């Protein structure tokens, strides 16, 4: 019953399956109106890889990249006089000062551009998960469609840089066993592009290698044999020709790609124990630092987009609702050295020019204002006071969406540049060149060679890389 054409196709697909690793997904949204609209012209890429360093929980810019008037802790001090809880320090760039405790990053500020005027909308309750969703997808939830993460956009539009390495890798965030996990999952996804473009999740950098190894207890030889026998069985399967090629072949191709990675030299990139001791120590301030090292190794082997996060867990890490000062002092010790080391390593390997590194958070913080001035958001500080009496009151405990900092390095951005500014006095809103999430994304996409107007057809509606295609790149940050 099998006709010649089927046999010919089967042979062809067998060859394809062996030769091609490209994801030839068929159940995918089509580029919007590809027939009768002008083709989207993508800008020329300035970077081939992107690392997003995500300091989840709301990094207070006055205590990090945008220091303001500093007053040390003192009993009886009225908090409206305090803007920063750390003094400012010099950086490698004359007109840029950042916050004490970030001396290593200060040393590499001449490799990038610091944006001090990023702004976010006030979504009523200033909820981390909703702002994180917005920041990672460009859209404010809830939505009627599943929006893809920006990493998924890069995976979809640009494809993998090295076909063996998954194009979108997400380091450091657990999606089970943490608060708001459902909300985190909602944006940690390929969205309507499907899981082919979704993240490979590596919550623990030191365990990353397990994701590309045979299951625990299985020797590599056995693993390889199992696959070899499997392929033999597939070839001998008497019913191969009775199932549609597109269904079977996608399955076999994906299985092949998976085993290609699991048997590749690139998988060594996932193994931090292969990093020289000295270099490992340079990064190892903890899980986040190891995540930065893993990101570097993955980008070196051809990852397209890597996110490294200090992890969002409600009320932990950068989500400082009390004891802000001492918490941020600790966090700086965790992030300062590895971030700077990452920049330096990428540079010394000649990769920084073509790698865009972004440091960002969902919003900033303030000692007094929740949301933006006039917001009706609920005050989220746990220990409220107007006058300092205890150390736990000393810190930036309210969510602030009116002005925050984003640092960008490498990937075609200006070196040692400053863009935008916030007010000198409270409220510390962006007063110069405010940059919305849409425009920030347009900037990132443009650097990566993706038009912010790129759109895909979802339920006969266009869905754009930046909201409604309106994102405008901040061209001033490009060299």
């Amino acid at each position: 019953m099998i006709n010649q054409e089927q046999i010919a196709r089967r042979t062809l697909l067998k060859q394809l399956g062996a030769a091609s690793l490209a994801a030839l997904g068929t159940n995918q949204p089509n580029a919007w109106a590809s027939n009768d609209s002008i083709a989207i012209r993508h800008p020329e890429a300035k970077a081939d890889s992107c690392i997003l360093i995500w300091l989840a929980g709301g990094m207070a810019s006055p205590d990090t990249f945008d220091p303001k008037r500093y007053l040390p802790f003192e009993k009886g001090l009225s908090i409206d006089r305090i803007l920063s809880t750390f003094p400012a320090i010099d950086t490698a760039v004359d007109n840029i000062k950042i916050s004490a405790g970030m001396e290593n990053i200060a040393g590499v500020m001449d490799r990038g551009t610091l944006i001090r005027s990023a702004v976010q909308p006030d979504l009523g309750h200033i909820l981390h998960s909703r702002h994180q969703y917005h920041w990672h997808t460009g859209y404010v939830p809830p939505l009627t469609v599943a929006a893809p993460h920006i990493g998924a956009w890069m995976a979809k539009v640009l494809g993998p840089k090295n076909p063996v390495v998954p194009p979108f890798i997400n380091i450091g965030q657990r999606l089970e066993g943490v608060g708001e996990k459902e909300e985190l999952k909602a944006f940690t996804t390929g969205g309507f592009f499907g899981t082919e473009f979704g993240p490979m999740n590596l919550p623990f950098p030191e365990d990353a290698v397990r994701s590309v190894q045979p299951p625990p207890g299985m020797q590599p030889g056995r693993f390889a044999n199992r696959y070899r026998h499997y392929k033999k069985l597939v070839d001998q399967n008497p019913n191969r020709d009775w199932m549609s090629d597109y269904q079977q072949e996608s399955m076999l191709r994906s299985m092949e790609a998976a085993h290609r990675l699991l048997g590749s030299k690139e998988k060594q990139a996932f193994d931090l124990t292969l990093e020289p001791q000295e270099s490992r120590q340079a990064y190892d301030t903890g899980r986040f630092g190891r995540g930065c090292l893993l990101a570097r190794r993955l980008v070196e082997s051809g990852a397209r987009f890597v996110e490294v996060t200090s992890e969002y867990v409600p009320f932990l890490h950068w989500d400082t609702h009390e004891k802000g000062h001492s918490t941020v002092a600790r966090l700086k010790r965790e992030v300062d050295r590895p971030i700077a080391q990452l920049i330096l390593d990428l540079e010394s390997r000649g990769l920084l020019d073509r790698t865009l590194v972004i440091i960002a958070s969902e919003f900033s913080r303030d000692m007094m204002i929740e949301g933006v001035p006039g917001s009706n958001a609920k005050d989220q500080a746990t220990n409220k006071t107007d006058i300092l009496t205890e150390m736990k009151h000393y810190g930036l405990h309210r969510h602030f969406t009116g002005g925050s900092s984003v640092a960008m390095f490498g990937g075609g951005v200006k070196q040692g540049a400053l863009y935008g500014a916030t007010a000198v006095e409270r409220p510390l809103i962006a007063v110069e060149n405010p940059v919305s999430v849409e425009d920030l994304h347009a900037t990132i996409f443009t650097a990566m060679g993706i038009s912010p107007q790129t759109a895909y057809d979802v339920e006969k509606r266009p869905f754009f890389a930046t909201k409604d295609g309106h994102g405008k790149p901040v061209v001033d940050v490009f060299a």
Partner: protein
Amino acid sequence: MKPLYLLLLAVSIAVSPRPSWAVDFAHEVMPILREHCAQCHAGSNQKGGLGMNTRANLLAGGESGGVVEPGEAEYSRLIELIETDDESERMPPDGPRVPPEDVAILKKWIDAGMAWDPEITLGESAWEPELAPRVVHLPPARDHRSHPIDRILDNDLATRDQTPPPPVSDAVFMRRASLDAIGLLPSAEELQAFLADPAGDKRERLIKQLLAREVDYADHWLTTWNDLLRNDYTGTGYITGGRTQITPWLYTALRLNQPYDEMVRDLIAPSEDSAGFINGIQWRGDVNASQTREIQFAQSISQVFLGINMKCASCHDSFIDRWTLSEAYNLAAIYSDEPLELNRCDIPIGTMATPKWIFPELGDIDPEAPKEKRLEQLAELMTHPDNGRFTRTIVNRIWERLMGRGIVHPVDAMGTKPWNDDLLDYLAVRFAQDDYDLKKFIQFVMTSQAYQSETVVLGKEPGEDYEYAGPIAKRMTAEQLLDSIWQITGTQPVEMVADVDRSPREDVQDNAAQQARLDPVPISAQWIWHAGETGKKSELRKTFQLNATPSAAVVSVTCDNAFTMTINGRQVAASRQWTEPAYVDVQQYLRAGENVIEVDAEMFGGAAGFICQFSVIDGGERFQVTSDKTWQARRPGSEQWATAKEIAPHGAEPWGEILDIDASFHPPRGPSPPVRAALVKNDFLMRSLGRPNRDLVVTSRPAELTTLQAIDLANGEILANYLNRGAENLVAEGWTAPELLEWLYRCAFSRPPTTSERTYLLEVLGEHPDLVDVEDLLWMVFMQPEFQMIR
């Protein structure tokens, strides 16, 4: 402090980063183009070769070249022509000129880059299906294939000079039917019995038997309905109380095969149990106007029950179909507690919505009625016998599940032309005639020759030019795949998270009446064993007479340490844990005349003893049968029965008051079948196999396996664990390699291995496969496309 902030608020608005769009294409530019240009340059009209359906058309220009230059209004011929005084050139050629303020808008628009929302065209509107049901006159049967579905499809094929696909073998049919109807693989034994059955109607009988397995059926279809009604066990909203489950209601509806129209009435005008669907998700914080609960309601009921996409119309009049903003809001207003103001693209427009149904030809809502009444009215209108859209939508969804592709596809776009409208209309009318009986409809499709045909082989996923040639193989859902793997490996989880009742259903009314008469009586039973040396095992028995079949009978029983009890040769209870007595309804095992209770008792060490107490209603009499010296006992192997030895009364140490008086009269219902994947929370493995988060209505699962999923299947710990435990279970069977292969292939593929498969695998496995060999064998089998597809 406050005043200072208020002052500064003004500053923050002034520097608002929201990109200011000088021109709103949809609401400013489009009306101008419609009014002045569309007559000659829209749809198929392309005067002078110039079409203006899309931005690309416009940019392409006409016979005399380009007419616009984005960013350069001044140099654009379009502007020149609408402004010119030259009567031979002017556009539009007749009628009023384009007013200067409109020209200014067009110029501004072109200068700003001529943004054109790609979803908007000047073309004509889409095909609009009829609302009313349509009775289809069936064409004559061809080749004696008289099933209505075959009559329609065979004729359709004949008009294209094609022949119907050949029927599948019994084995392929059984696997397909079983997975489609109840989501489980047929066991090797079931398969053998089916193949051996010579009866001509065995396929129809199998379909009926499968669908009669109400728990298995509900376990399977729950997946589809949870997706469709966005019901889940965890997810956004549940933890904050902004969302409620409808699981118990839904499961019961499926299990009892509640008619679909009733189900929908329960969902639209709900009780507390079924309210979760229309209440949607209450998000924390401020949400976009198109995501309020009211608008979610309008979107969800339109999509789920009618295949209408109201998402566009929730923001503005839809550009892709006929639905308008006010229709979406009027529908939402039916649900709204408060008067609802229309928002266009998130901006209030000062118009209030009136509760209103979208198909006025069927009737309308009384806008003055209270919300509950309005919802009841809506439920009636939705399920109105003349609402053909309602029945077409559901039959199409089920057709897609069974046949691999919708008659309208995608299944949510019911405004799209079906590839066979006779088929769709016939099915919809039939479904209504059959009282909206979902099972009956599934059975109707499955009994057609079309369903029972070989699947068609396609080189690529079918597109809009799809023509029916036969059923299309389906990828198993994550739940089907997991259930199948669990079935073969015996690794079902013990606990389910779904709050559903899966225990065997009994004749509820009778039982309740009898239970009421079985009031607890004190436990008077004795711990017994055989006399003499205790040994490890004892056999116990009791014979007693009944005048009639009892109207009720329960037993409370346990043994230190283990026992098996039969009544008249049928096993009724067994336990290996003396601290957990069994409480069993044994009415059906007893009969008029002599009854024999037999017990195999076993002691693992320490104290030995068996105890039980029956409570029986025989005619009007109520009496107890208790373990005591009226029982007989013997050591296994010995010929002679002797009087059982009473060791101690109930309540004595070391066992204490082990039998619960109350429990024995409210025995938990019999054992439930193994837990199924649809009843447990989503996990990494199922997620990577395509089980969705259900924040949104989900009507299709991914058809393809991706690389990241394949990595999970290659080395994921969850699957590895099933393989490992499964291998242990199978090795314990003590099979030889050929026996294992035969069994496994029949279970997994519903066929024996071919000679070449057998030869190859026997070489790989060796004579006595060990744990590792079996683990790898299981993986190789489960990863075959043939396993993961329903072909």
